């Protein structure tokens, strides 16, 4: 960053601190697109991160809002104002982006026994352990399992869950999936999906819905 830009930032910051009524507007107009571009650039250099324009817009404004509310948190001795805002916005962007990804990964497709599918959210307090708590002996009849799923992998995962098998790597090896993060993520998602399907269809699966 050029020393001119840094000097301009220092002047703007000093003006804002002194209560100059137009200083913040000048900071925003001079820097907002640069801060946005900073997020775009950083995101491009990260393989597991991509640009979500809405999140980026919000992150940029959050950084400026924090600065407006507490300009003292910026130390001109440590960095240029633009670098400070870019860093704050990028931090906000990554946090929000991860939060959003998590929210989306918690959405699973649920298929009922009649083959209808719905999209449901897995709540934070729902754990797959609940499934293992059920009485395995009563629940693993062939007809029951068939009603739950006809997919071999899914059935194997249900068996693992009922047996309370928690060693993720062992489960993945049993399923014959390749080692790695992707398989772990896939297993977690499958477990969540099955658990949701299991809970949703439990009365029907057990025949409790019959009058």
């Amino acid at each position, binding site marked *: 960053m050029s020393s001119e830009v840094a000097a301009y930032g220092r002047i703007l910051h000093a003006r*804002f601190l002194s*209560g*100059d*009524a*137009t*200083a*913040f*507007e*000048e900071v*925003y*107009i001079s820097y*907002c*697109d640069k801060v*946005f571009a900073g997020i775009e650039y950083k995101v491009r250099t990260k393989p597991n991160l991509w640009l979500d*324009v809405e999140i980026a*817009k*919000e992150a*940029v*404004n959050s950084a*400026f*809002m924090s600065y*407006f*509310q507490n300009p003292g948190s910026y130390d001109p001795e440590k960095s240029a104002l633009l670098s400070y805002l870019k860093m704050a916005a990028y931090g906000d962007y990554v946090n929000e982006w991860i939060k959003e990804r998590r929210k989306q990964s918690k959405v699973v497709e649920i298929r009922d026994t009649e083959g209808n599918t719905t999209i449901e959210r897995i709540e934070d307090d729902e754990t797959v352990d609940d499934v293992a708590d059920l009485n395995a002996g009563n629940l693993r009849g062939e007809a029951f399992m068939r009603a739950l799923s006809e997919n071999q992998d899914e059935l194997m995962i249900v068996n693992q869950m009922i047996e309370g098998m928690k060693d993720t790597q062992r489960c993945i090896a049993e399923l014959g999936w390749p080692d790695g993060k992707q398989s772990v993520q896939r297993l977690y998602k499958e477990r969540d999906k099955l658990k949701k399907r299991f809970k949703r269809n439990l009365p029907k699966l057990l025949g409790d819905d019959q009058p």
Partner: protein
Amino acid sequence: MSMPPDEEIKRDMLARMASKLEASPKSMAWMIAKYKEAEGIDNTAVARFLHVGEEQLLHLALCSRPRVELFNEDIESIADHLSIEQRPLLELVRHVEALESFQYASQAGSSQWLAAARDIAEEPTSAYDVDVEGAEDEKHDNILDDEQ
């Protein structure tokens, strides 16, 4: 002619920033929001009152509220910076400040009235008063006994 995407993003961000700043009483965005609320009008009407375009109104919203000790200078500086008329800007700010002090005074006033009302309605009879009356009766009875 349509705006290039970057300009659209910038304008959208500016509008969102202005609305974010409405939460901060240190900003002109807050003052504009209070004025709109008091007058029951929207951005277009405020812009008309200030003789500015809606985009200029967003820039105004990003300015800080004029300082009490440098009020006239700050109004002048905002007006110069955004090339807007001083008079309507001054009127808007004064209007909101008047509303603010009226609200503050009426809140303080009503709480004082309530406190005063409570003092009258709930003033307890002091234990001392009760005892004195009882003591007086007892004293009177004793006198009567002595007299008998």
